[in-house]
Every structure is written in structure tokens, then in C-alpha cells.
């Protein structure tokens, strides 16, 4: 087996190592594939579907699909842009994403993705779901109104913290994050130093006392779109 794989993304030749996913190879090559649930240090969850690319004519998620020699990947196409906008719109109407008072605003990956995709307002009707806020933990609060079910906290707590504080319960549109207790987050062994406390892409898992420290204009995505760090590698 050769120790290098060559394939193309939107016609650009990309070199990769065997066993890498399209996402990993693209990141190294400075090509940004939009994503929400993916975080390099965690097992790919493949749930948001924003990183859907067309591989040899078939849709696949870049975060889970291994590279193969000669693979032809389409990423930045008008069709995929439309699908990605639709997915981000879905996530916005599914929850209660009221950015103006959200602690993560400006540093939120969902919001930043919407900015990057040029979304001014979602095209779908809002669901206005009734979701709880859990502030029982002394250092962390859990705001399910903003959860996008990316699974990062579930994987981080289980695989990195070795705790299993979070899990998914329910199914279909009622699927949600639950904590490992018959009561609340405050009754679990979650610690603010846990990896799971720092992986949430949105304002669902928040560390108390850290909000609004960075002034407007200097936050992560105020000036440069999400993904710029990857694109700057090129």
C-alpha cells in the first residue's frame, strides 16, 4: 500500500495519508469544508450533515468518509451550498436560538456558519419548542433550547473524561440530550474542567461567570468567517 493518496476536491489535487478522512485531508490542505458537529479530537458523529460532499457522484459526509486514491470530491458547489443552508436553517428553527442574549454569540459555531453561508433569516417556520434550562450545577449551566444534538458532549464525556455524563434520549424530533442522573446536571459528577464542558459548538453547555467577557467586535467570528483559520493554511 502506498503511503500517500492523491485525490481532488473541486478539481484541486490533495495529498492524504491512508486512513485519513476527507475532512482531515482537506483541513491539512487548507480547504475548508463547512461542518458543525465535527471536532478533530473526538470520534466523528456525522449528525449535522453540513459537511456533506459529493464523492464520485455520491453524497457522503467528509468527516466520516475515508480518502481513496483518485477520489473526486465536490465541496464548493451551488447545490451543496443550498443543502447546507437548508440544514443550518433547520437547526435554527428547531431550537430557540435567540442570539441577542446568548452567552456564545460571536463565538457560536452555528451562528458563524449561518453568517458564512450568508443566511439573513431562516426560510422555515420556527418550532418554538419548550425546552428546559438546567442551572443546578455550581459551575455549568445546560441550556437545551440551543442544543443542535451534535453529540460532542456525549463523546467527550464518555471517551475523554471517562464519565458518561451525557446521553441521548428520545427519538425523532423529541430526541434530546439528557444527563446521567434521575435529577439534574448538578447531581452528576461533571466538573468544569471536563472536556465535555468545553466542546459545545453553541450556547448549550456554558461555564458560569465567563459570559460576555470579550467585547463585541473582537469575538471569534466577528471579523473573519468560521473556517478562515483552515483556509489561511493554504
Amino acid at each position, binding site marked *: 500500500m502506498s503511503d500517500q493518496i492523491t485525490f481532488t476536491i473541486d478539481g484541486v489535487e490533495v495529498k492524504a495519508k491512508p486512513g485519513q478522512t476527507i475532512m482531515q485531508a482537506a483541513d491539512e490542505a487548507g480547504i475548508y469544508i463547512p461542518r458543525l458537529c465535527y471536532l478533530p479530537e473526538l470520534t466523528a458523529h456525522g449528525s449535522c450533515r453540513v459537511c456533506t460532499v459529493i464523492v464520485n457522484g455520491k453524497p457522503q459526509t467528509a468527516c466520516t468518509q475515508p480518502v481513496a486514491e483518485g477520489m473526486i470530491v465536490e465541496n464548493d458547489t451551488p447545490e451543496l451550498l443550498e*443543502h447546507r443552508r437548508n440544514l443550518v436553517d*433547520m437547526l435554527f428553527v428547531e431550537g430557540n436560538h435567540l442570539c441577542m442574549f446568548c452567552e456564545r454569540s460571536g463565538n457560536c459555531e452555528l451562528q458563524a456558519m449561518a453568517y458564512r453561508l450568508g443566511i439573513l433569516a431562516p426560510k*422555515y417556520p420556527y418550532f418554538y419548542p419548550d425546552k428546559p434550562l438546567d442551572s443546578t450545577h455550581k459551575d455549568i449551566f445546560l441550556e437545551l433550547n440551543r442544543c443542535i444534538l451534535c453529540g460532542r458532549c456525549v463523546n467527550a464525556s464518555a471517551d475523554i473524561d471517562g464519565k458518561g455524563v451525557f*446521553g441521548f434520549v428520545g*427519538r*425523532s*424530533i423529541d*430526541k434530546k440530550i*439528557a444527563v446521567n442522573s*434521575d435529577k439534574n446536571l448538578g447531581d452528576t459528577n461533571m466538573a468544569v474542567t471536563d472536556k465535555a464542558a468545553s466542546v459545545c459548538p453553541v450556547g448549550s453547555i456554558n461555564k458560569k461567570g465567563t459570559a460576555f467577557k470579550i467585547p463585541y467586535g473582537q469575538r471569534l467570528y466577528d471579523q473573519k468567517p468560521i473556517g478562515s483559520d483552515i483556509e489561511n493554511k493554504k
Partner: protein
Amino acid sequence: MIESLQSEVKQICKSCGNDRTKMMDIVRGVQEKFGQVSSEAMNLIAKSVNCHRVEVESVVSFYAFLSKKPKGKIVIRLCNDVIDKMAGLAPVADAFKKELGIDFGQTTPDGKITLEYTPCIGMCDQAPAALVNDEIITYLSSDKVRELVADLRKHYNPDKIIHRLGDGNNASELVHSCVHNGIRKKGRVIFSEYKEEAGLKNALAVSPVEVINEVKNARLRGRGGAGFPTGMKWQFTRAAEGTKKYILCNADEGEPGTFKDRVILTERADMLFEGMTIGGYAIGAETGILYLRAEYAYLRKLLEKVLKERRDKNLLGNNILGKKGFNFDITIQMGAGAYICGEETSLISSCEGLRGDPKTRPPFPAQKGYMGNPSAVNNVETLCCVARILEMGAGWFAEIGSKGSPSTKLLSVSGDCRLPGVYEFPFGIKVSDLLKEVGAEDAQAVLIGGPSGQIIGPNDYKRTICYDDLATGGAVVVFGPERDMVKIAAEYMDFFVEESCGYCTPCRVGNVLLKKYLDKILDGKGEPTDLDFLKSLGESIKITSRCGLGQTSPNPVLTTLKNFRSSYESKVKPATDGFQPTFDIKKALAEHESIAKRKSVIYTE
């Protein structure tokens, strides 16, 4: 009570070896015993099997037949599939509500009977139908409901509600059910006479690789709908690295309108287990798992008996039929009410004692399946075909049917036709010929392959049922001239909304949106632009969903939009005043008008 819960739960866990991967059996056992898996029970289970409590809750909350809240000793689950609605569900539902004095989703005040809806239970040819715990009641009418409820109130024993027995093995003591097989046409492969164990003997006389080659030569493709070549699947599984391998049989047919596996399980269990055993030999597995949908629990005793007989005859067990070193046995894994578990990786998740979420692919089950071991997941009918191929030879098998699609296919036909039931036809049959056969010459539309397949109109009746044209897992649903196809599409979307596992965004959220827009159109508030909207949204769900369920879930909408466009167009009109037709000011004001005890002076009518 708490002590009894504690000891009972501990006992149930112990009987499952305190094995976390047996979670399905554990929570099913607790549910059966206590009518719920309470919060306290979840804590106890987690402690016994040494897992996190949230893992138990994630399983319990996933499956429709499990519940955290208490349910009655008797649970009546009325099937609300499209077919049942067409067959007169509404008066039956009303009769249940009236007789029990409760609404759906409720339990009688004495805590004894719970009434629920459930999606397709595989009885479309004898709809309306319901489950009373594990028992099946078919051809329901309001009169029958009255009798049933009166009967139940006398003894609260579901075993005693079956007064008339069905045909074949349905009448056997172990099944004791009123279900009719409804075999309308016997073909040469599944329902004709077969020589028991001839296939298995032939298989054991040659090497596993030769068995796989035989299956390949027969060009057998999966009968569940996806049509993957079975021989190739087995070859991959056999070749995959791993000491333990598994063959799993998917008996979770949940596609609305499909019930052919029900008949195989009732009448051809031996043939199925023979096929599984051959499969086990071919891929090098020692264990087979039959994943049986909870709705078919009434067949379990029969299947267990067949398995026992096979063990007694050394058709299962060690050194099967004297073949040294070939050890193989089959266990039954019960489901708990989740359509998604018919998806092969979800089925594996469920067998592992997890929520029925599909797994990330790759790796495919052939590489890493059940418990991380190479596994082949095959449809019930596929495995029966295997037994026949090994009995009669690949040549015999491949000669039947059409060129690209050898052999026969079982079709479950229901809906607006005179002769619903199970038909075994050679592949390549024209839709128009099928419609003539089932007594549905006036069909306005036919759903081929269940809601995840396609809904076609008369222009397509000259097309043929086969892998290269109209592929199907077996469901054929006929819609007569009176049916509103937009309404039908909306009702199928209800099904997908309910059955989505919720893992990925497009299927979880997108299907709810599709349904909202269909309702808007059916409500007379749709506009022509909504049709483009449905198409764009449907395409996004199709392209970006994670598994086969999501990728096919918009099909009822997309195929009716294409084939019954005029039905949509006749329901939409442009709003000329720029107001949103969906906004109902009177409805929006009703609450405050009632609180304030005054009427709006702006919006007076």
C-alpha cells in the same frame, strides 16, 4: 413495592447474565413485569449491569413498546397505518375511546388498560388491526371493539380474546392467532413444496467458498429492498478479519404495507433457519441472530419450537449433520417497536443493547458488525432463497424471473384491491398484470416498495417489478380513484416523522417541515411556490440524510409531486393580498378574548 422492584429487577438482570449488551431483553423484561421501566428501575438496571443510568434511559426512551411512565397491564395498540385509515380506522378508534372512556395515549382510571396508536403492524391485508399486548386482532369494526373490550374487562387476559383461529400454523397451539396467512399465489421458490434439509446437506457437502459461489452464480440479491448481491456480502464477511462472525436475520419488516415475512415466519420457519444455517456455514459464523420485531411476538413460541426441533435433529448445535467442526446455533432477539431497526446497522445497534441508531459507515457490517465482529445481515426472504438455491442449484434458481433479477419475489399487496394478500411472482411482472391479478384494474396509484419506494400512476403501469426498474422490498399498496394522493403523502410523512431516530438533522427536522407544508396545502392555504419549496426541501433530505430511512423518507412527497402534480396544483393558489394564509387572526386572539371576556374590535368576524 420498592423491595419487590429491587429484587425483581436484579433477578431479570441476573437472568441476562448482568450483561449490558442484553439491555433489550432486560428492559423488555422489566416493562413486561411492571408495565414500565421507571426511573428507579433504570437506576437499578444501571447498577446491576455496570453502566451509566443515562444509557438505560437512552434505550428505554427510544423504543415505542418501552416506557418510563406506567402503562396498563393490557396495552391496546391500534395500527394507524394509511391502509388501516382506508379500511375504516376512524369508527374503530372512536369505539375504543368510547368503550374504554379514554383517549389515545391514556390509561383507564383503574390503571388496567392503555390505549395507543402504533404504526404498521404487518396486518395490512386484514386491516383495521390492533395488538392487545402480544395478541393480534384483525378486521376490526366498532361492534368487534365493543365485544373485545367487554371480553377484556371480564378477565384482563389477552390470551382469552382469540375466538376464531386463522389458517395454517396460525391455528397451532403455539401461535393461537386469528391472523390469516393470505397466501394468494404460490411461486416456485418460497411457497412451493421443498425438500427439507436438502439444501443444507448439499451445502455441507461442499466447501463454504463453493456455497458462496453457488449463491453468487444464482445472482441472488437482497430481498429487503436495497438489493445488494448476497454472495458478495457473504464473501466480504467471510474474508473480513475476525475470529467470531455472525449472521443476522432481519425480521423487523416495518415498512408500511409489508407483511410477507410474517407469512414466511409462520409457514416457512424451517426454510428460513436452514438458509441461516447455510449462511453461517458459508461465512464461518457460529451464531445466528433472528431479530424479530416486537409486533410479531405472537410468533415467538412457534419459532422457538422450530429451533428446538432443529437442535434435537442436530440441524443446529455442534458438528451439524455430522460435519465436523461446523457448530452453529440461532437465538432470537426481540425488538421493541422501532421501524428504523430494519436498517441493518440500527438492527445491530439494537442487538447490542443500544438505541436503534444507525452506525457510521464505513466500516460496513461485513467488516465490523455485531459487537465489532464481521456480520452479514440478511432479509428473511433472502435466506429462504438461499435454502432453495442450495436445494435446487443456482441454474434452476437463475432461470426463473427476468434477466437482471432472477427468481421470484414475494409481494404484500393491500389497499384498494379485491384480493389483498401475499403473492409470489417471478421478477419482471408488469404492474398492470399485477393489478389485474389482485383485482385493482381501476387503481389511481400504486405504491411500490412501501413509502420509502415510489408512488406511481397509470403512465407507469407498463413498468415491471424488478431490480432494474421498480425495485421493492415487497410492499405494493393500491390506491383507488377516490383517494387524495396529497393526503396519502402527508399520512406517510407522519410515519417518517414518528420513526426517524432523530440522529441527523435533515431526517429529524426536515420531515417535520415537509409534513407542515403538506398540511398547509391540504388546509387550502398552499401557494404554488410551496410546491418548489417541497421539492427543494425533499431533495436536501434525500441527499444529506445519514441512512436509508432518511434518504428515502421524502419519497412519498417527491414521487407524488412528480406523478400526481395536478392533485397538488388543484389545491394551491397564489395569495394576492400579500398576507400569509396560514396566519389565523381569530385563532390567535381566541385565548385572550376568552381571558379578557371581550371581543376584538379590530377583527370582528
